[in-house]
């Protein structure tokens, strides 16, 4: 257990971070200039960290597999970013954001980390606005807010349905500024394929130049992974096609523990699957639940068009089951409720695996307000709908367009059909309070780490965490490590550890290319995804998980015997890139099932059918499972469990209640 020291500073919760910042050892500017830091990933967590570290004076190398750092998948986040600004004067505070996040995470997150996140949340908004990020504003020129799930205040800042894009472009511009000044060396179209460990410390990486195929060795005094989540283990998810676990998995195999791998977020409002050709799923932002009401027909297999079903024959099941939060319950609750209705036979659309998200009532309400502003206090229904549609269009126009594009239906006229889909992974590399993994000098930020969201992430909190880690947390905490490393000179990359790591990567590549089997990488990825979705998805049970572990092991053997990777190692070869990623997803999938099997309780996104209340809600077991499961890699299919006990000193642990 000695390895699992979370290094939470002593003292009162609200003072921990303040005291930490004022007592953490510093690195003087002259020394910073000779200290090199590698940042892998250029999303919100990676780009903000790389830019900030360079501003502080460190020499930074940043890597991304895309053709530009601006393309990282943070760009696709739609709805918003939370911050405890209390601009709406509705009772928000640092404590309330902290409390909502812990509760939303079903009491499986670390108090000290979450409180720090809530503390720095306000700074993020200030920083982004200063960068010129065009967040939504009111007519008075001040920032606007909206509501997200799991809260009763309006603390979500947004930029139409493109919040992630605008925040990422802010971080990207800060990063490009440092690149232009020569303080960050940017390596695009590069993929990290191993970490180099010397004397027990992370000292560099092996990266493949994806254009030339060349393997490169890069030294760093420390290595930071901001490489995102692993939702693509399910094949179909809202992640980008390239999102992968490879960097995180490679370091896991070199000694970094993997925390809570089974905690997966299934987002309730996604466009349903339309056919076998489907390559990814598209999210419809949670912000739509501000103005959309979710319902299914009260009658099973109702063949009528939604517009023909009268009010009293509709079941607004979230409003019925959870009157206090209604359509704004947290994601895990909303997803399971949709699945419950569809499994019971009330689903809609061709596949019957969908529910309606209906904007009509709120469109009419907005229309009435608009008419009233224009002096018409008795508008007819048509006027209301026309004026209201304009309001809805301004708020969510790009989402509605996207929906129309994908489905061929007009959501202004007919309700959207939606269904849950894999969206985010709360699990990730285990890190301590400093965001350091169990490998000294190896840090992990953003979605790639496990730290802040417990068993379920609240909407608009991923952007907050990515930027908190990169702008305001890591730049301080990394100093604690680097201040002890100022006399370490750059290690030449002909060091045997670099040579060995590179040789291992090369051997794996040669192996992929030599199998010359009969099935494509995608074939295996789809089969893995099917196993994961059916047996380690929204509902899990002992029998299914046990089967899944066996099936994944068989799949792994088949993959390594029968995969076909065309082309060669020394060229731009996307199939080879995918082979690395899918090989790692297969191993991760097994660990996720092992973790889900071990966790004999339901909490947040992890729902074990054996453990539910009479009303079908998640039933935690705080006596036996109030811990972080951190898994150590011990060889093929072998993982050792380490526990980090979670202690709640400031929050009373209770069953979540959104009724």
């Amino acid at each position, binding site marked *: 257990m000695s390895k699992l020291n979370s290094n939470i500073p002593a003292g009162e919760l609200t003072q921990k971070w303040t005291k930490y910042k004022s007592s953490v050892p510093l690195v003087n500017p002259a020394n910073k200039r000779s200290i090199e830091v590698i940042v892998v990933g250029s999303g919100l967590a990676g780009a903000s960290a790389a830019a900030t570290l360079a501003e502080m004076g460190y020499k930074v190398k940043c890597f991304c597999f895309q053709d530009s750092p601006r393309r990282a998948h943070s760009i696709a986040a739609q709805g918003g970013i939370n911050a405890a600004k209390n601009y709406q004067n509705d009772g928000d505070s640092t404590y309330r954001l902290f409390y909502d996040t812990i509760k939303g995470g079903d009491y499986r997150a670390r108090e000290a980390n979450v409180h720090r996140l809530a503390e720095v949340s306000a700074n993020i908004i200030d920083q982004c606005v200063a960068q010129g990020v065009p967040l939504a504003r009111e007519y008075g020129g001040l920032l606007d807010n909206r509501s997200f799930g799991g809260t009763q205040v309006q603390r979500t800042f947004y930029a139409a349905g493109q919040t992630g894009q605008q925040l990422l472009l802010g971080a990207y511009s800060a990063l490009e500024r440092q690149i232009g000044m020569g303080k960050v060396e940017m390596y695009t179209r590069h993929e990290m394929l191993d970490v180099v460990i010397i004397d027990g410390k992370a000292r560099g990486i092996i990266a493949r130049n994806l254009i030339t195929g060349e393997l490169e060795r890069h030294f760093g005094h420390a290595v930071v992974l901001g490489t995102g989540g692993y939702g693509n283990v399910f094949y179909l998810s809202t992640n980008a096609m390239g999102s992968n676990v490879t960097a995180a998995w490679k370091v896991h195999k070199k000694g970094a523990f993997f925390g809570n791998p089974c905690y997966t977020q299934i987002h309730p409002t996604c466009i349903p699957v339309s056919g076998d050709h489907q390559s990814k799923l598209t999210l419809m932002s949670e912000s739509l639940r501000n103005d959309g009401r979710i319902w299914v027909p009260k009658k099973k297999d109702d063949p009528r068009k939604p517009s023909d079903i009268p009010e009293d024959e509709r079941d607004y099941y979230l409003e019925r089951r959870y009157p206090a939060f209604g359509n704004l319950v947290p994601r895990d609750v909303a997803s399971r409720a949709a699945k419950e209705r569809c499994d019971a036979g009330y689903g809609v659309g061709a596949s019957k695996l969908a529910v309606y998200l209906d904007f009509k009532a709120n469109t009419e309400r907005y229309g009435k307000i608009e008419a009233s502003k224009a002096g018409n206090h008795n508008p007819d229904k048509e006027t209301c709908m026309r004026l209201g549609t304009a309001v809805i269009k301004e708020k969510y126009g790009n989402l509605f367009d996207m929906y129309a594009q994908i489905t061929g239906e007009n959501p202004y006229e007919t309700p959207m059909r939606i269904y849950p889909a894999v969206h985010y992974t709360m699990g990730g590399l285990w890190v301590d309070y400093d965001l350091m993994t169990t490998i000294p000098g190896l840090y992990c930020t953003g979605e790639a780490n496990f730290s802040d969201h417990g068993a379920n992430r609240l909407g608009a909190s991923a952007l907050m965490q990515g930027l908190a880690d990169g*702008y305001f947390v890591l730049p301080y905490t990394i100093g604690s490590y680097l201040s002890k490393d100022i006399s370490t000179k750059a290690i030449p990359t002909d060091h045997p550890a670099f040579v060995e790591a590179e040789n291992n990567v090369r051997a794996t590549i040669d192996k992929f290319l030599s199998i010359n089997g009969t099935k494509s990488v995608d074939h295996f990825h789809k089969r893995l995804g099917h196993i994961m979705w059916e047996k380690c998805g929204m509902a899990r049970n002992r029998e299914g998980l046990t089967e899944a572990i066996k099936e994944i092991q068989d799949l792994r053997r088949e993959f390594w015997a029968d995969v076909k990777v065309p082309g060669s190692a020394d060229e731009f070869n996307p*199939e080879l890139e995918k082979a690395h990623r899918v090989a790692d997803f297969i191993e991760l999938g097994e660990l996720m099932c092992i973790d889900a099997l071990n966790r004999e309780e339901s909490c947040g996104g992890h729902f074990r059918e054996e453990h539910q209340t009479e009303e079908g809600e998640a039933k935690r077991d705080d006596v036996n499972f109030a811990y972080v499961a951190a898994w150590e890699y011990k060889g093929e299919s072998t993982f050792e469990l380490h526990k980090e006990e979670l202690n709640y000193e400031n929050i009373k642990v209770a069953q979540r209640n959104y009724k």
Partner: protein
Amino acid sequence: MSTGNMNLTLQVWRQKNKNSTGKLVDYKLSDISPDMSFLEMFDVLNEQLINKGEEPVVFDHDCREGICGMCSMFINGQPHGPKDLVTTCQLHMRSFKDGDTIVVEPWRAKAFPVIKDLAVDRSAFDRVIAAGGFVSVNTGNAQDANNLPIPKAKADAAFEAAACIGCGACVATCKNASAMLFVSAKISQLALLPQGQPERYRRVQSMVAQMDEEGFGNCTNTGACEAECPKGISLENIARMNRDYFSAKFISEEEV
């Protein structure tokens, strides 16, 4: 679940690497579903090529929801194909007819060299941003966000300019391979906001200089960029950039 019934002929640009010459190669596809995206249709093609032991077509793509800006196909003479205001990944096969022949080429511009098949090198855009597409504010420098009220109309206009996804369709469609729409969108976003004022004239000069250095062409006001932009970025941005560029020449203390 939809079943596919479309038969198509694809003519796809194949080019081994940046030094080799490429050519259009014909492929027949059958049983394509109208609900597939254009890229999913390419997934089907690639799966078939792999199974036949041939090399799949390399193309750039990532988010497949129209926001990352990575996908970049020139389809039947139009960047991102025939539909307005969408990227290739959001173009669906229902926009085509059974029996169609579809020609697919990479972006073509001197500043965007082909890497392989349909993938091109757009790093020139990053270098233009690095030349000045930012507000110089280090982490920790910021004041409270609401200390700086910004009129909604200005904020909205800045947001519209900021919606650019950096895909390069504007360059690909321009007969001069000009990057003015892309460059002016970033310049406008920051020129419209108070945060962008201190560096406004320095910025426009250094970004335009870098744009020229990269080998992008000039603007002759054809307007193809605006017509083909998947995010509807307006030509007004180019006018604003030009105004600022000329103004900068008269503001001596801001000269780079």
